[in-house]
């Protein structure tokens, strides 16, 4: 049995991690469909952001209830990973509680895992209630209809199953540890503040059966973890991984600073310099794709914007603070992010189906996913950017899509066109003469 189970375990791990690896590679490829943007400057500030925001959850606790509940579940997640190390070693080498030699430290470790597992169960119950019974507005919105709503619940059920299996595994182990004279390899190790209350359940059951159950819980636990890990790719729960790079690569500039399009700068300079010879300007790069002004599809966005889309947790904090959304307009920054991810996935599948090249599908992020009406409702107030617990910037996508509407399609609302021609002709958004600029002085 010993070798057989080791081999079985090794295969299981290989399949679990192998599939995970393939999907991660796909995500990286898809993110690289985006345009280049430099986010490598100032590593110090970037590490700090990552430590504070992703690791330290500093933006989560701005809403204290969900913040604290989230920290519990997050700690539970980290612990699963530490515990995973022991599981992997035990599984591969047929050992049992390999770290037990750590003695008291091991007791403390297992004890705190247990307490956290218990807290996670409570937190998950609270989360589930908020979503399904209290129906908080930001979780009951139509953005989430269909899979996103179920996705959130699936994850909660996953947590319950994983934590329960963990506790059952410990409880049965404890039961076997306590058999006078010792039973098989169940040495006395660890401390069990929670599962000690579950262990009596096994009283009166034959030791052999409890051992089988213990093995079963152990296997189900690790299988559950592997399935969970691979489910991430399909889920908003990808954020447990991507929150880290996402906070690292986030924009460090003042929120009010929008990027200046370089392609435009070159053209404007040519237009403004009477001595410039338009024919003299060499094309910067022969192979460069003729650049579009603004973005109509995901390939026009930059890779950080695409990373943002994969990282979005669909928490809706952005939408619940968006003035346009609050006043009943179509715009929802969360939907902007979800649409972007959906479109990236669609393009990715297209590439997979066509041997690595994208075959135009007559669709685009703009119009097929995000409408002009949504875009024009944005006041560029940055509330969504401020709120996002993982430093996503929905506004940057909105602006890039608007740029396409205006500069490529001349499709701004009429009143905005009037405003722009006023600026062009009079140097002011209203129809006043530039020569009257100082009139206030004598009025």
């Amino acid at each position, binding site marked *: 049995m010993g070798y057989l189970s080791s081999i079985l375990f090794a295969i299981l791990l290989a399949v679990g991690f192998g599939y995970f690896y393939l999907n991660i590679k796909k995500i990286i490829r898809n993110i690289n469909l985006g345009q280049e943007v430099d986010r490598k400057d100032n590593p110090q500030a970037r590490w700090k952001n990552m430590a504070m925001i992703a690791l330290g959850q500093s933006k989560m606790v701005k809403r204290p209830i969900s913040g604290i509940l989230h920290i519990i579940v997050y700690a539970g997640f980290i612990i699963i990973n530490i515990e995973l190390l022991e599981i992997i070693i035990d599984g591969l080498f047929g050992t049992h509680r390999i770290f037990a030699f750590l003695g008291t430290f091991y007791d403390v470790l297992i004890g705190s895992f247990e307490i956290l597992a218990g807290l996670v169960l409570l937190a998950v119950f609270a989360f589930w209630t908020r979503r399904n019974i209290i129906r908080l507005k930001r979780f009951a919105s139509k953005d989430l209809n269909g899979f996103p709503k179920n996705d959130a619940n699936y994850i909660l059920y996953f947590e319950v199953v994983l934590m329960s299996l963990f506790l059952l595994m410990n409880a049965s182990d404890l039961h076997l540890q306590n058999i006078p004279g010792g039973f098989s390899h169940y040495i006395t190790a660890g401390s069990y503040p929670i599962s000690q209350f579950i262990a009596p359940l096994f009283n009166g059951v034959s030791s052999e059966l409890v051992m089988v159950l213990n093995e079963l819980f152990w296997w189900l636990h690790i299988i559950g973890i592997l399935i969970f890990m691979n489910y991430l790719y399909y889920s908003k729960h990808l954020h447990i991984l991507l929150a880290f790079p996402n906070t690292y690569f986030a924009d460090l*500039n*003042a*929120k*009010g*600073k*929008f990027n*200046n*399009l370089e392609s*435009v*700068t070159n053209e*404007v*300079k040519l*237009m*403004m310099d009477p001595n410039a010879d338009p024919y003299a300007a060499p094309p910067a790069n022969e192979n460069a794709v003729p650049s579009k*002004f*603004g973005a109509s599809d995901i390939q026009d966005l930059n890779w950080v914007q695409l990373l943002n889309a994969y990282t979005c947790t669909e928490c809706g904090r952005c939408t619940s*603070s968006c*003035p*346009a959304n*609050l*006043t*009943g*307009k*179509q715009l929802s920054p969360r939907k902007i992010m979800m649409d972007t991810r959906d479109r990236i996935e669609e393009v990715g599948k297209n590439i997979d189906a066509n041997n690595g090249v994208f075959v135009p599908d007559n669709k685009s992020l703009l119009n097929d996913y995000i409408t002009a009406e949504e875009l*024009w*409702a*944005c*006041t*560029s*107030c*940055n*509330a969504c950017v*401020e709120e996002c617990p993982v430093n996503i910037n929905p506004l940057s996508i909105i*602006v890039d899509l*608007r*740029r396409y*509407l*205006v*500069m490529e399609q001349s499709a*701004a*609302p009429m*009143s*905005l066109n*009037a*405003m*722009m021609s006023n*600026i*062009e002709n009079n*140097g*002011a*958004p*209203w129809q*006043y003469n*530039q*020569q*009257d*600029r*100082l009139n*206030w*002085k004598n009025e």
Partner: protein
Amino acid sequence: MSEVLIVPTMAEMLSQGKQPEVLFWVGCAGSFDDRAKKITKAFVRILNRANVSFAVLGTEESCSGDPAKRAGNEFLFQMQAMTNIEVLNAYEIKKIVTACPHCFNTLKNEYPELGGKYEVLHHTEFLKSLLDDGRLTIEGGQFKGKRITFHDPCYLGRANNIYEAPRDLIQKLDAELVEMKRSRANGLCCGAGGAQMFKDAEPGNKEINIERTEDALETKPDIIAAGCPFCNTMMTDGIKNKEKEGEVKVIDIAELIANAMDL
């Protein structure tokens, strides 16, 4: 008013061989909008009183390009920016103050990459520095005990993390500063930003400025203090909509200071 405002232009300064301490960037609203012009004048009165050597560009000023940029017209924005930068650089401007957070933001953050590098201050920051340096003193308790709530302009607050300067100034008035439930980084937009000022709102069930005015009215204020000409318009409209114009006034911080100084 028969008052005399001293408002030199850069061209005049140059012809006298002088360089002012600071350029006052008036902005389109401050130049043309009737309500905003009062803010402009109040600010100039304070500058005059404090003997600040300043100048304006006058007819050489043009739109900063902010509404074009937020609307997505990067071409028009950069044309405006580069034209303005040429003028500003020709006058060797080092320091700029403006009463419009939109001009402030774009001059401060978006001009440098295009060749326009200046120290840019919002007028609340500048006024605060005048007070701190003792160049300005506020006396008189005309606002003593008045309930004043401050509406954070998005382009000053969230966009540039300036929350305290306007509040410090209000506190100097011996007034009671009351905070709305959404304030500072959590402040709610007045609805005018991102070029919304120049178009109708998309269909919804409420106007944003009404939602924001309700936030303000919840604090039972005597005065809603503003730091942006566009917020000022939006909140004033909101107050009119709620038929509260008899009880609540929307006043820019520069006007509050000027009034407190009896200017």
